């Protein structure tokens, strides 16, 4: 039953066919496009990339298409936040890492748990449970999730709550009744594909991507029709242009990204077929340019020295037409990635004054430790500055758009590389930042970790002895493992920062009351002054916080703040997965840096909702 070559060809053929069938959509007139955009405004709060109008709801994990995560509600402010108190709480009954953002639609909150991916509907004022939906994902999917069995949240669209399950399905649930509307299988856990990311819905298409870069999957982004779950298009991250949906409209800014079939030719023989570049992070959308933006994960499953070349299009970013999936431009943050620097972080869409003129930019605090400011119309890098301690780079060349690498930190066999900073989870992992248009500051939760890649270790998998590097992570300079940094992307500098004992693995929430919220793995939910960084209030949660805080206005007219606890994720598997602290190299080397986490937190998820008395 050797189906391998046939299967690959079939997939290619289907992808090519899909590309053909849907390319006509791009030919429709500009008027139609505008009319459609108008319709969308009716179903989702009107969204401008930089400063969205706010109706007090929270309809997607990032709140708005521009991923600003800014709440314009201002009842809770720097003067009264210290009076904040718990309105209600709700145990999810699940013990693994809770990374999701709650959604709020009208008087209902929706929350997706980690595996088994239960969806709860809860009354936003009383905390009463309205219903729950259990998709019952295949339990085998837990065995192929690389880093805890997390889920990063849902999206609301025209009466449906839509999200991904760990076993690679996308489901749409009736927001009123909790009944399943459709369920669509997008990937195959038997090939190592799982799904953990939060979808966004753009013009009736649900955009979802796969996880599994550690298992030799081939990354993709897929558009699913929101009304019936059918697949509209799929764009692969590696392979021939036809599969990557690269065509005549593709105009990358830099010469290194121009050429035919680079997703094949930047790899040794056929390696792109299992080359990684999974799409497990954040997607943004600019309605004016009509472009979506998302990043691709690390290349795999090869040793860097066995995959010479840029390994396109892994550890990079795509701008695409949401109707057809066609690529418009692409750029690689970390060509030929050496350190597991996935390029999937949030894409914050802003209009910023750069050298005297207002530019439409995309701000990306990236895993490789740099804050990038890109022109989002062209993909040109306008600035790139380190926001964490970095030993792997010596700066950035704006002319070529390339990082200046420190060759001495390149790991390889027969070589011991010490003090690689930032470590594999990067200057910053998935944890999303938040932008305040009032302070014009980006609030970035992040890591301060370095690593050594040392001696060979014998290991065993599927009956096969193999050897790997032993990766040990530890705190970077200063001894703290996390930090919460206020960053000015125009002045290109840090304004203030708060040191955290553990990686700051939760999202950030900026509000018009000039209060910024985030949670910590040692069980503090913090409110800080957006301008000074002074901690104004904190709440001791039951478990460590690695989720995304939100703010909403209840039907009672009051402003609420909501966040889930439940430690876990890659950084927290030592607690959520009960790993042995003596095995420093487990969780891909993360356990060594988190040995004391069990002293600070237990596992278990609860949603907390706060308001003023």
């Amino acid at each position: 039953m050797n189906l391998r070559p046939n299967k690959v060809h079939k997939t290619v053929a289907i992808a090519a066919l899909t590309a053909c069938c849907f390319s006509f959509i791009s030919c429709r007139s500009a008027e139609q496009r505008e009319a459609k955009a108008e319709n969308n405004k009716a179903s989702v709060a009107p969204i401008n990339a930089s400063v969205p109008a706010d109706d007090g709801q929270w309809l997607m994990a990032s709140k708005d298409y521009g991923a600003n995560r800014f709440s314009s509600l201002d009842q809770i402010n720097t003067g009264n936040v210290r009076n904040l108190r718990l309105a209600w709480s709700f145990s999810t009954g699940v013990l693994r890492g809770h990374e999701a953002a709650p959604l709020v639609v009208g008087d209902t909150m929706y929350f997706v748990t980690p595996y088994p991916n239960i969806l709860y509907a809860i009354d936003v004022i009383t905390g009463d449970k309205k219903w729950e939906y259990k998709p019952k994902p295949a339990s085998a999917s837990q065995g192929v999730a690389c880093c805890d069995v997390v889920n990063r949240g849902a999206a609301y669209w025209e009466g449906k709550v839509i999200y991904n399950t760990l076993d690679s399905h996308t489901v749409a649930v009736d927001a009123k009744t909790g009944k399943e509307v459709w369920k669509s299988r997008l990937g195959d856990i038997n090939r190592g594909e799982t799904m953990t990311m939060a979808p966004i819905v753009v013009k009736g298409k649900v955009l979802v991507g796969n996880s599994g870069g550690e298992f030799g999957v081939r990354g993709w982004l897929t558009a699913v029709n929101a009304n019936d779950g059918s697949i509209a298009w799929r764009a692969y991250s590696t392979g021939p242009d036809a599969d990557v949906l690269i065509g005549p409209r593709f105009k990358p800014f830099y010469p290194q990204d121009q050429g035919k079939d680079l997703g094949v030719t930047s790899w040794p023989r056929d390696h792109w077929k299992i080359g990684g570049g999974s799409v497990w992070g954040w997607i943004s959308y600019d309605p004016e340019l009509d472009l979506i933006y998302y990043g691709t994960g690390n290349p795999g499953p090869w040793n860097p020295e066995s995959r010479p070349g840029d390994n396109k299009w892994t550890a990079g970013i795509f701008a695409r037409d949401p109707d057809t999936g066609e690529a418009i431009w692409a750029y690689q943050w970390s060509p030929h990635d050496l350190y597991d620097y996935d390029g999937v972080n949030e894409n914050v869409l802003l209009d910023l004054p750069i050298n005297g003129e207002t530019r439409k930019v995309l701000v990306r605090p990236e895993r490789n430790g740099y804050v990038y400011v890109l022109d989002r119309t062209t993909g040109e890098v306008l600035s790139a500055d380190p926001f964490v301690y970095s030993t792997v780079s010596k700066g950035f060349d704006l002319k070529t758009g390339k990082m200046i690498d420190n060759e001495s930190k390149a790991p390889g066999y027969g070589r011991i590389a010490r003090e690689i900073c930032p470590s594999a989870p990067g200057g910053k992992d998935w944890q999303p930042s938040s932008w305040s248009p009032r302070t014009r500051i980006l609030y970035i939760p992040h890591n301060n970790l370095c690593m050594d890649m040392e001696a060979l270790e014998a290991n065993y998998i599927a009956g096969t002895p193999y050897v790997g590097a032993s990766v040990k992570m530890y705190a970077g300079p200063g001894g703290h493992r996390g930090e919460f940094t206020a960053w000015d992307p125009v002045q290109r500098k840090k304004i203030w920062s708060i040191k955290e004992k553990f990686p700051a693995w939760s999202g950030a929430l900026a509000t018009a009351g000039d209060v910024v919220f985030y949670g910590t793995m040692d069980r503090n939910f913090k409110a800080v002054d957006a301008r000074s960084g002074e901690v104004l209030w904190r709440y001791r949660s039951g478990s460590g916080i690695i989720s995304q805080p939100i703010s909403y206005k209840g039907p009672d007219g009051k402003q609420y703040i909501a966040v889930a606890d439940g430690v876990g994720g890659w950084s927290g598997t030592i607690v959520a997965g009960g790993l042995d602290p003596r095995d420093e190299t487990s969780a891909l080397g993360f356990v060594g840096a988190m040995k004391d986490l069990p002293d600070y937190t237990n596992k278990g998820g609860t949603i907390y909702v706060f308001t003023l008395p």
Partner: protein
Amino acid sequence: MSSPFRRTAVLSAVGLLLVSCAKRTDEDVQPNQRVLRVCSDPNNLPFSNERGEGFENRIAGLVARDLGARLEYTWFAQRRGFVRNTLRAGTCDLIMGVPSNFELAATTRPYYRSTYVFVSREDRNLDVASLDDPALRRLQIGVHVIGDDYANPPPLHALGRRNIIGNVAGYSIFGDYTEPNPPARLVEAVADAEVDVAVVWGPFAGFFAKQQVTPLRLTPVLPEIDLPFLPFVFDISMGVRRGEEGFRTELEGVLDRNEAEIDKILARYGIPLKPMARGTAGAKGR
């Protein structure tokens, strides 16, 4: 051996069994009988499968008989988290095969030593025996790949270090778990002429070479240790939980008493063996 196992066997039922914990029990159940609980992959011949057709299943049967115990299995795909979710979670007590210097378990003395081998078609008459053979620069080579973070089988490391890269094709060790014995694809790739030569862990090569219609040639990889320290030969032991060294000692008694029969089973499955100094206290952590 006339093999009852065909590569065309369709194990559709296996598809979603990566984590399932179905238990198989011997027929003659006696009350208060000791139970030998083995952690095992349901879909990875020649080692094991849920029908008990692997050589590890056979040896587990031997161990159970010797201990007067009833044999039970916890089935779990042998992937990342295997030890954590089986042995360490306490759902079973014995892993039949792990490298003797395995970190995650207490290991018995080794009971066999195998080697990575070059696999090619007999009709090609290739004479590749060494990683330093210049022919490896022009032949199409197949290897297993595991993950990034430098976790890969020795052949990939050794070839990469020699800058033999562009002519190397990777076959995922995980493969497609809905198919029987996913790692077997690499040996089939040689028979199907997808590659000229594959560098394969001995047990896969020996067992699956016999399943092919096309005659295949197996040659142990030299050097045995690619300097500074990249071994191609591994001692394999049984693994138990750390702290259960009494059980380990008991198992070593079983190994001593059943040595001849174990060797016979290994031979029947075509496992390429390298000589071991008998009585080696190779286990780590003593």
